[in-house]
């Protein structure tokens, strides 16, 4: 099971900082996100991109986490040599994070109305 089964995500940029939201498709799954999608796991998941700190902001009212990845964009959108200089695709990379499948029914088929 991967994070995509439980959550949706969107990435944005400010300078050399990538900002990636992780939003529970079903708010009931939020505690699992908070438990499993930790700063340490996200840092390891993006090891090839990161050159700075990772911060996580918890938004239980929205059933969402907000991640800030510093130094993740190759010097910043305007100077980066990367094909995806904005790091927009990093949201999809985030959703590849493995999560445990031991909590409730499979999420397949649920539509993210949050």
């Amino acid at each position, binding site marked *: 099971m991967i994070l995509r089964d439980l959550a949706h995500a*969107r990435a944005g940029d400010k300078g050399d900082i990538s900002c990636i939201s992780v939003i529970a498709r079903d708010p009931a799954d939020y505690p699992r996100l908070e438990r499993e999608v930790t700063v340490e796991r996200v840092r390891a998941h993006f090891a090839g991109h990161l050159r700075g700190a990772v911060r996580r902001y918890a*938004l239980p009212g929205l059933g969402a986490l907000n991640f800030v990845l510093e130094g993740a964009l190759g010097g*910043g959108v*305007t100077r980066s040599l990367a*094909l995806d200089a904005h790091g927009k695709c990093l949201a999809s990379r985030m959703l590849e994070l493995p999560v445990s499948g031991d909590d409730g029914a499979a999420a397949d088929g649920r*539509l993210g*109305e949050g």
Partner: protein
Amino acid sequence: MRTLRIGAGSGFAGDRIEPAVELAEHGGLRYLVFECLAERTIALAQLAKRRDPEGGYDSLLAARMRAVLPACRRQGIRIVTNMGAANPVAAARRVAEVARNLGLQGLRVAAVTGDDVTDRLRGTDAALDEGGTVAALGNRLVSANAYIGARPIQEALAAGAEVVVTGRVADPALFLGPLLHEFGWAEDDWTRLGRGTLVGHLLECAGQVTGGYFADPGRKEVPDLARLGFPLAEVSEDGTATITKVPGSGGRVTPATVKEQLLYEVHDPARYLQPDVAADFSGVRVEALGEDAVRVSGGDGAPRTGSLKVSVGCHEGWFGEGQISYAGPGALARGRLALEIVRERLRLIGHEAEELRFDLIGVDSILGPDAGSGADGAPAPREVRARVIGRCHSPEEAERIGHEVDSLYLNGPASGGGVVKSVREVIGIRSCLIPEADARPGLTWVEA
């Protein structure tokens, strides 16, 4: 309770125009806002203004105005836009000219000036976020524009502007200005300023809250994206709002689309720093009110910092790039060989680059080292595209990268095709903070 309907006619410079017309004609709006200014756009506009003193504003300004002004004039919808870019006064003159040509005499257009702090910052020791000072950029400095707040927009509207054209303004402030004017919120009513900022933030990327940038077939379905409707907010006097769109337009507005936009490019949701307020989105609640209508409440705010962020544009050299494709059996190995050859060629010819990058599109160009080694059982790609890009100090040096990729046609691996090469100038964007008193906004008036 009194409400105000405000719509978003664009979320970036190249955005579609028809959804703005749809909003103007069928949105029941009082205000239509066009956000068109990305971080780098204003630096490029400053360069354009140097070449032509009457240039330096958004290239689609006239087309957008021609499309929406008739409906806006007819219905009394006022327009706010940052399409003035580096030259709001020239842009205001252009809007007036478009209005005259449409027979809309007497249209009052206000240009907001004062965000350009290039001359004030040049040579100073203002500290850049990425390290170093503005002075250290020397003649590489292109531009410095402060993100100013909503007050000048409010003043322009209070003085009767039907169209307000700005340069660099904090994006949410384009929406906050009309709310301040209509509701008369106090300058230190941090809660309402925070809620107004939330409304602006949700609308500023236009289609990104109505189902654009959201679809993921099989998981997140969005109908009719080719006819995506742009958003409007019905805002109450207390700052709570309902996000919706014109009935019958494409896309959808759900709590999920609203949440994605709510957190978009927000770092600490409890401290979203703006020129007018430190907005707090941490307690926001979203709830579906019905089809394509989502109520947003619980926004808050704290006193503004007193500093303004400045977007500093600078020359960063030249990008040179070349790409070539390989397909069929052995495509991956031939693509890798192509990259090795170009790497060795650039060394042999003594090529000088600040940075170089070698990608295989379809393999590792996006995910980089996180893509894995390819030894994890994944099937070999049936086609790959080799890409070499470097940042160089001159256009001539940048051009040599594309030449080396081009020469793979006759000198590289078998069956390479589809070479594309390019050279383009790099305008980098850095940022710094200045005291808010250092930017002095003003208004210039033009009448059609």
